[in-house]
C-alpha cells in the first residue's frame, strides 16, 4: 500500500506534524533508550512511567529517544516544555516525575545534574558543561525524537533536504554543494566525499550502488551505533541524496551483527520510508527510484575495510583486495558495478549540508577539516559518553571541559584516538586542535572517533599490547606482513610486558612496525602498528623501564618488578603469606620476606597488603639492596635524596638573600656580613641584576694585601666569575661543581632573579642523615 506523496503534500503534512506533534507547550517526557541507558534500566523506567501515566490519566507523551549523550549518568530523562534534564532516574522516581515536574514546573532537585567542580545543580541541558561546548549537527535529532516513528523525524524538518534536492536541484548541483562543503569521510581516513562521489558519477554504466559502512568494529567507538539506533532516517536521507547525486538506484547498509537494535530500527525506518513513498519507486512523484537493503556482518573486524565489506555483501570471505580498481571504478565495486562507500556519519552530515548549503558547512570547524565530528569519549574521564564538537577544538577542551577531567583527581597521561588504527597523544599536545591533519601529524588519526583517555595508572606497554592483540586476532590472514608481522610484534610486546624483554627488543619492535606499515595490503595492516609505534615514540622511557629495569611504573604488567617487604611499615599481619599461591612469602621469627626464587611477580601480596608495605622495585634498585644489604625502607630514603633539587634545599632553610649595590664600599659589605653572620654577600647593579659575589675569602685576601676597606668600592674587590644554578638542578650536580671548582657559595637564579643562595653548609646538612645512618650501621 505504497502511496506516493507530492512535494506539496509532504510540505503540508510536515507543517501539520510540526504544529501538532512538536507544539511548543506540549507536555512530553523524553527517556533515553540508547544501549547504555537500557543497560542501566531505561526499559523498566519507561514501563513505570507509562503505568503511572495510565494510573493518573494525565495527557503526557513518553518518547523513547536514541542516545542523548551523557551515557555515564543514565538513564537520562528530559521534560518538555520546561526542558528539565534528569540523570540516574530510577523506576521509583516515576510518580514524582509525573506529579511534580511535568504538570507543575518545579524541578526535582535530587535528580538534576550537578557540576562536579562547583556542585551547582543544572536545571537544563544547556547549562551542563558537558553539552555547552558541543555543537550538534550530525546528532541534531538524536535524543529528541523516537527513532521508530518517521513522523517525529519529519516534524523536525526531516526529508526536507531530499525534497529540496529533487524539487529544485540537479544531481550535479547536489554534488557541487558537497564539494563546496568539503565534507571529509568520517570513517577515519578523511578522504573528501565530493571527490569520491565524482569518481563514481563519472564511471560508465547505468547500474551504481551506494553503500553505508556501519561495521563499526573499533573497541571504544559507538557513534555510528548511536546514529543507526537513534536517528536512522537521517542516514537514509543522506544515502538518498548521494544516490540522487551519483545516479545510483540501489543501496546497501552494512551493519555489524553485534548491533541488533540498529538493525531493527533501520528496518523499521526503511519500511516506513517506503510506505510513504520516500524510498522505493518514483520517490515523491519525480520518477527517481532507489531501493535500500540491510546486510549484517558476522563478527569480522576486517569487513569495515571497503573492499572486504564489498566481498562480504557479495557472500564471500571478507578478504580485502589490492586497489585499484577502486570501488568507484568500473569492475571495482559491488558485483563489479561502480559503488560509492561512505561511513554512516558522513551520510548523516548530508541533509543539513543540502538544507543550509555547502558554504554554511565549510565555515564550521577549520578550513581543511570543516564540520563537526562525533567522538565516543571513554576511559578514565569523569563524563563518558557521545560528544559532537566542531573540528579544531583542542583536546584539552574535549577532555577537561566537556569530559570534566580525569577520574579521581589522577594525572592525565595520554589520550588514545582512532582505536586500534590510531595512536596515543601525550600531554604536550593537549592544546593541539582536533582535526584530520593535526592528529595525523602527531602519529595518530581521527579514525572512527573513539577517544580513550588514559591516566597515570595506565601502562603504555600494556595498552599497545591490548590493541595489537586485537588487530592480530582480527587480521584476515591474506597478506604475510600483517599476518606474521603483527604476530611477531605481539610476541615481543608480551615478552616485554612479562618482564622478559632483552636489549634490542624496542628497536626490533619499531623496525617490524615500519615493515608491517609498508608491506601490508589494506588499511588494517597498514595502521595496526600505530598504537605501538606512537607509544614508543612518546613513552620510550616506559618501554626502557620494562626492558632494562623489569619494572612497570603503573603496576599493571604482572611479571615485572621485584617484590620486597618494607619492614618499617609491615604490620606482620601475614596476609601476604596467605595470599601467595607459590609460597614465596617466608616468615622468620619476627619478620616476613619474599623469596625471589619462588616469586612469580603476580602481585597478589601487593594487592592484599593493608598498609602498602609490599614494595615493587626496579631491577637496579633491587640489585642495590642485594649487593649492599640496604633494606628497602632506607633505599627509598636514598632514592628520594638522589632526586632532590636545589629548590628542595632552599625551601628547607630561611630564604633571605643579602645583596649590596656595586657602588657601596667594602666596609659596608663586611659590616653586613658581620651583622647577619653570613659568609658571603651578592653584589647587584642598578637593575638588581647579579654582577658578582663577595665572600670571606675575599676579605682574607684584601686584608693580606692591606687594601683600604673604607674607600675602595666593592665593585673592584668582588669575584666576577660566578657560577649560578637554576632551582631545578639536582643537588648532586651542585655538589660536584662545589667540590671541583672549590666554591663555597652558589647563587640560585631563576629568570634573572636571585631566588636564593646555597652554601657548603647546606650540603653538609643534606648529607648528614646518611652519615648518621652509616655510623648507626657500623657501631
Amino acid at each position, binding site marked *: 500500500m505504497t502511496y506516493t506523496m507530492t512535494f506539496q503534500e509532504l510540505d503540508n503534512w510536515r507543517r501539520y506534524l510540526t504544529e501538532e506533534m512538536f507544539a511548543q507547550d506540549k507536555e512530553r517526557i523524553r527517556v533515553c533508550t540508547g544501549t547504555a541507558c537500557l543497560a542501566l534500566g531505561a526499559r523498566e523506567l519507561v514501563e513505570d512511567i507509562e503505568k503511572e501515566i495510565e494510573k493518573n490519566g494525565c495527557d503526557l507523551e513518553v518518547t523513547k529517544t536514541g542516545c542523548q549523550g551523557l551515557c555515564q549518568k543514565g538513564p537520562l530523562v528530559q521534560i518538555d516544555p520546561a526542558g528539565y534534564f534528569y540523570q540516574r532516574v530510577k523506576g521509583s522516581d516515576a510518580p514524582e516525575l509525573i506529579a511534580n515536574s511535568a504538570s507543575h514546573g518545579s524541578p526535582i532537585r535530587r535528580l538534576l545534574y550537578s557540576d562536579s567542580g562547583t556542585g551547582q545543580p543544572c536545571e537544563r541541558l544547556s547549562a551542563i558543561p558537558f553539552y555547552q561546548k558541543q555543537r550538534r549537527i550530525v546528532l541534531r535529532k538524536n535524543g529528541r525524537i523516537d527513532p521508530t516513528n518517521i513522523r517525529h523525524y519529519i516534524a523536525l524538518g526531516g526529508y526536507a533536504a531530499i525534497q529540496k534536492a529533487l524539487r529544485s536541484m540537479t544531481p550535479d548541483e547536489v554534488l557541487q554543494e558537497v564539494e563546496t562543503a568539503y565534507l571529509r569521510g568520517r570513517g577515519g581516513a578523511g578522504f573528501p566525499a565530493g571527490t569520491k562521489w565524482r569518481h563514481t558519477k563519472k564511471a560508465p554504466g547505468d547500474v551504481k550502488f551506494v553503500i553505508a559502512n556501519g561495521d563499526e568494529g573499533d573497541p571504544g567507538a559507538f557513534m555510528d551505533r548511536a546514529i543507526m539506533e537513534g536517528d536512522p532516517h537521517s542516514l537514509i536521507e543522506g544515502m538518498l541524496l548521494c544516490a540522487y547525486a551519483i545516479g545510483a538506484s540501489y543501496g546497501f547498509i552494512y551493519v555489524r551483527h553485534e548491533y541488533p537494535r540498529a538493525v531493527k530500527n533501520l528496518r523499521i525506518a526503511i519500511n516506513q520510508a517506503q510506505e510513504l513513498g520516500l524510498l522505493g519507486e518514483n520517490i515523491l512523484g519525480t520518477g527517481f527510484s532507489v531501493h535500500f537493503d540491510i546486510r549484517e556482518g558476522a563478527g569480522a573486524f576486517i569487513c569495515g575495510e571497503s573492499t572486504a565489506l564489498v566481498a562480504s555483501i557479495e557472500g564471500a570471505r571478507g578478504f580485502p583486495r589490492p586497489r585499484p580498481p577502486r570501488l568507484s571504478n568500473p569492475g571495482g565495486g559491488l558485483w563489479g558495478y561502480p559503488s560509492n562507500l561512505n561511513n554512516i556519519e558522513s551520510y548523516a552530515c548530508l541533509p543539513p549540508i543540502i538544507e543550509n548549503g555547502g558554504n554554511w558547512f565549510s565555515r564550521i570547524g577549520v578550513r581543511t577539516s570543516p564540520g563537526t565530528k562525533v567522538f565516543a569519549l571513554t576511559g578514565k574521564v569523569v563524563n563518558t559518553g557521545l560528544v559532537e564538537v566542531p573540528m579544531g577544538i583542542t583536546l584539552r577542551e574535549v577532555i577537561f571541559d566537556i569530559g570534566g577531567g580525569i577520574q579521581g583527581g589522577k594525572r592525565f597521561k595520554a589520550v588514545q584516538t582512532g582505536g586500534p588504527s590510531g595512536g596515543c597523544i601525550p600531554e604536550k599536545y593537549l592544546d593541539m586542535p582536533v582535526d584530520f591533519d593535526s592528529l595525523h601529524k602527531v602519529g595518530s588519526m581521527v579514525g572512527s572517533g573513539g577517544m580513550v583517555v588514559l591516566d597515570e595508572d595506565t601502562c603504555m606497554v600494556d595498552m599497545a599490547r591490548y590493541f595489537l592483540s586485537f588487530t592480530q586476532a582480527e587480521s584476515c590472514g591474506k597478506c604475510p606482513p600483517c599476518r606474521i608481522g603483527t604476530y611477531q610484534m605481539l610476541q615481543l610486546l608480551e615478552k616485554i610486558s612479562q618482564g622478559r624483554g632483552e636489549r634490542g627488543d624496542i628497536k626490533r619492535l619499531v623496525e617490524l612496525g615500519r615493515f608491517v606499515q609498508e608491506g601490508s595490503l589494506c588499511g588494517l595492516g597498514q595502521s595496526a602498528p600505530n598504537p605501538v609505534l606512537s607509544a614508543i615514540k612518546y613513552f620510550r622511557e616506559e618501554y626502557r623501564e620494562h626492558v632494562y629495569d623489569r619494572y612497570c611504573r603503573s603496576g599493571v604488567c604482572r611479571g615485572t618488578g621485584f617484590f620486597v617487604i618494607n619492614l618499617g611499615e609491615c604490620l606482620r599481619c601475614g596476609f601476604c603469606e596467605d595470599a601467595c599461591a607459590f609460597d614465596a612469602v617466608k616468615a622468620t621469627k619476627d619478620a616476613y620476606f619474599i623469596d625471589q626464587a619462588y616469586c612469580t611477580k603476580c*602481585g597478589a601480596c601487593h594487592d592484599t597488603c593493608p598498609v602498602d608495605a609490599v614494595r615493587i622495585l626496579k631491577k637496579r634498585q633491587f640489585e642495590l639492596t642485594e649487593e649492599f644489604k640496604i633494606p628497602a625502607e632506607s633505599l627509598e630514603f636514598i632514592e628520594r635524596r638522589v632526586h632532590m633539587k636545589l629548590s628542595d634545599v632552599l625551601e628547607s632553610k630561611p630564604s633571605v638573600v643579602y645583596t649590596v649595590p656595586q657602588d657601596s664600599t667594602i666596609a659596608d659589605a663586611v659590616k653586613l656580613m658581620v651583622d647577619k653572620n653570613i659568609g658571603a654577600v651578592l653584589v647587584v647593579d642598578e637593575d638588581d641584576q647579579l654582577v658578582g659575589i663577595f665572600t670571606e675569602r675575599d676579605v682574607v685576601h684584601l686584608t693580606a694585601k692591606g687594601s683600604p676597606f673604607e674607600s675602595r668600592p666593592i665593585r673592584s674587590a668582588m669575584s666576577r666569575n660566578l657560577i649560578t644554578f637554576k632551582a631545578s638542578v639536582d643537588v648532586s650536580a651542585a655538589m660536584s661543581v662545589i667540590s671541583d671548582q672549590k666554591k663555597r657559595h652558589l647563587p640560585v637564579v631563576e629568570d634573572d632573579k636571585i631566588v636564593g643562595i646555597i652554601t657548603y653548609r647546606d650540603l653538609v646538612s643534606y648529607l648528614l642523615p646518611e652519615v648518621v645512618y652509616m655510623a648507626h650501621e657500623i657501631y
Partner: protein
Amino acid sequence: MTTTTLTVGRTSGWDEEKGERMDFKALTITGMLERAAEATPAFARNRAMLIPLLHRIQDDQGYLSPEMLQALSRRLSIPLSEIYGVASFYDQFHFSPRGRTVVRVCTGTACHVKGASEVLSLLQERFQVEVGGTTPDLVMTLETVSCIGCCGLAPVISVNTDVVGELSSEGVDQVIERIITT
C-alpha cells in the same frame, strides 16, 4: 556427537530426515535482490543470499549443522567447501550446538591467583564438560578467556553478557543455579 531434536521456528517445512526439503521461500531475503536482478547475474544473487541465510539458520537452530549446510549448498548451487570457507571466516558462525548460556571463565593472572582454576573445575565437575565444550543437553557452553578487564573483582566469569565477580564457592553455586534455571 549427540543427536538433538532441532526446533525450527520460522523455517517451516523443515524435515529432519530429508534435509533438502527446506522451505526456502520462508528464507527469501527482503525483496531487493529480485529487483536488482538485472544488475546481478544468477550465481551472484545466490552468493549474496549466503550470509543472510547462514544468519537465519543459526538464529533458528543455534548453530550451522552439516545437514543444513548441505541443503543450502544444493539449493544455492554453491559447493559445500565454499560455504564452509565463508562460514568459518566469520567468528559468529558456529558448527556445533551451543548452550543456552555461554560461560567464560577468566584465567588471567589476577583471577588465576585468586582461584580461577577452582571455579573452572567446579563448573567442569558440575556440568561434566571440557573447556570449549557444550553439555549434551545444551544447557551451557564453557569457555575460558584470557582477561575481561575486571581484575579488581577477581575471580571473574562472564555469563552470556553479564560479568559476575568476586566468586566464592557459594557464588559459583548461585551461578550454577542460574545456568540451570535459564
